[in-house]
């Protein structure tokens, strides 16, 4: 579903990603862990089409299409969803209006009929119920005045409504208390399916107790330096990122 090949990206003059390789098949959940500054959010941003990053080398194929050539809205319409680390407040726009505009843009792209207000309301109310989120969320302006936990829940809610093929979660767990963390991970788990791929970016192993990944990768200085199963996350938790750094300093073949 997603193939990242030798991806290099920079911000201004600073090279952040230095050759990332990653392949995610439909149905798989991949976790990317790494210390601050390792390039986790840059990777998420590049995949979603944030224009602050300059891709200098490499390719990203999504369902066989060149993802890097698409505008952010095209990527979303093709089925890429980024749950933001810092969701943006949009005063004056209600969550309902915002989300309906998104859903209908995506439906139009897929050749489906646009949803009218009634059908849309039916859809979102059903999703809210599954995620145990209060209905007043719909009327509130997008993320305005939301607590950190509410913002992250809203991201998962949007994800549930838009039903993307590839979900990218950028540190969705950061700053969440245990209740919010449960809501978020329940929401993510409810979306796991054979057709859907997931890329879970996190700083902490804690989230991975709730969302069991198929594969864990360690991103360090812009490269994936270690890959393994869920046990790798546990090992990192015990030994810390210093362990990865140590490993890299050892001479080749040691």
């Amino acid at each position: 579903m997603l193939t990242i090949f030798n991806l290099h990206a920079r911000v201004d003059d600073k090279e952040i990603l230095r050759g990332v390789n990653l392949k995610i098949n439909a149905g798989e959940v991949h976790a990317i862990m790494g210390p601050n500054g390792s390039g986790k959010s840059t990777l998420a941003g590049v995949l979603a089409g944030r224009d602050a990053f300059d891709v200098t080398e490499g390719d990203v194929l999504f369902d066989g299409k060149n993802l890097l050539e698409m505008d952010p809205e095209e990527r979303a319409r093709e089925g890429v969803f980024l749950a933001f680390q810092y969701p943006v407040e949009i005063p004056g726009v209600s969550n309902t209006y915002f989300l309906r505009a998104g859903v209908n843009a995506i439906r139009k792209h897929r050749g489906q009929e646009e949803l009218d207000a009634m059908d849309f309301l039916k859809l979102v109310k059903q999703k809210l119920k599954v995620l145990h989120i209060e209905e007043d969320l719909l009327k509130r302006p997008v993320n305005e005045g939301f607590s950190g936990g509410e913002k992250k829940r809203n991201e998962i809610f949007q994800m549930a409504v838009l039903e993307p093929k590839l979900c990218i979660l950028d540190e969705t767990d950061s700053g969440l208390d245990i209740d919010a963390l449960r809501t978020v991970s329940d929401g993510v788990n409810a979306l796991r399916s054979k057709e859907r791929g997931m890329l879970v970016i996190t700083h902490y192993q804690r989230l991975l107790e709730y969302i069991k990944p198929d594969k864990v990768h360690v991103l360090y200085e812009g490269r994936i330096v270690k890959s393994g199963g869920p046990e790798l996350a546990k090992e990192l938790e015990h030994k810390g990122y210093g362990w990865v750094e140590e490993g890299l300093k050892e001479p080749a073949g040691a």
Partner: protein
Amino acid sequence: MTLVADEKERFLDLQAQFERQQPQGWLKNLRQAAVARFDEMSFPDVHNEDWKFTSLASLLKIPFALSDKVAVSADLRSRLDAETLPSARRLVFVNGVYSAELSRVHQAPSGLTIGGLSGIENDVVRAHLGAIAGDDSQVFTALNTAFLHDAAVVVLPRGLVVAEPIQVFFVAVPGKRATLIPARTLVVAGVNSQAKVLEHYLSVGAAEDVYFTSAVTEFALDDNAIIDHAKIQDEGHEAFHIATTQVQQGRSSTFHSTYMSLGGRLVRNEARVRFTGEGSEATLDGLYLAAGRQHVDNFTVIDHARAHCASHELYKGILRDKAHGVFNGKIFVREDAQKTDAKQTNKVLLLSDEATINTKPQLEIFADDVKCTHGATIGQLDAEGLFYLRSRGIGLEDARHLLIRAFANDIVERMRIEEFRPLVQRRLIAPL
């Protein structure tokens, strides 16, 4: 300076020509006094602090004529009907002259005085007209009074609550010659009275015709009176619109207003509030939209002359192309005006590199137990917001429109005259 004198002479000549067509009476005396004051003043140039960012050169070089009587066209009727709210009473002025034919003051509740000035020149009107908007230092107010011969008049006696909105339309039907169109409104709200008053300034006919609307609106609110007010300035592309609203508020009165500016080539909207009793509240909101080479100047003065009064100002501007916006907000807190609560905000979206805004808060505080805040934000569309919308599948252009409308919509949501919101949505917000 001789240049300025010539410009003044032109208006004085025009006034003399106008005066010859007018009957004798108390209005003539009012006009003559205004002419005398006008003659003592000069038009401000950019060295005048209150006009620093607005040059009047383009206005003053034009020799204006008096406007002719015009026939009521089908266009005019349909335009009026499209903007008249279902339950509203309306007063219509065409080129500054009251049209009984177009106005609708049906079933006025007993005690409500409403109509054109002639016929209702009673003591209340005589006591207030020209007295609220003092023209000692305001040359354009003096100019307006010098041409005062008709006015929209609304007088609410003690205790009268009028639920239906009152719409005052000043329709310009300009011709080939550049004309001066005076517009005047007087609203007197007695103790415990309440009403909703809307002012519309619009033009019918060739959009490129040059004319000059000189508008003065006076509000006198007695104790506990409540006035909800909104103004839409929707003049033609080449129009000059210089307007002053003066509000005088008695004890525990409430004035809530929204100034919307859409049309015109050179626009000045002055809103002046004077608290003459304690415990009153005034809200001045504004939405100014400008494009091309439009110049829109919003000038507000709030005079906290009494204690325990609150004022709120939120002005928002959206400027495109080479448009120039000005916001100048003066707040005076006099020595005895303790517990004053004044808040002023101006937010501006600049949608092109060549659009400009000058924003200037001016707070003069002489009391020591007060809360006064002011702020201004000027910027482009939020790049993060745009990316967020796009990341959910919304196209770039749609995302831009969505953010621009959301920015403006805030002002509409704050309007207290709810029945007016759909029209504002349709006329101002939807095209954004």
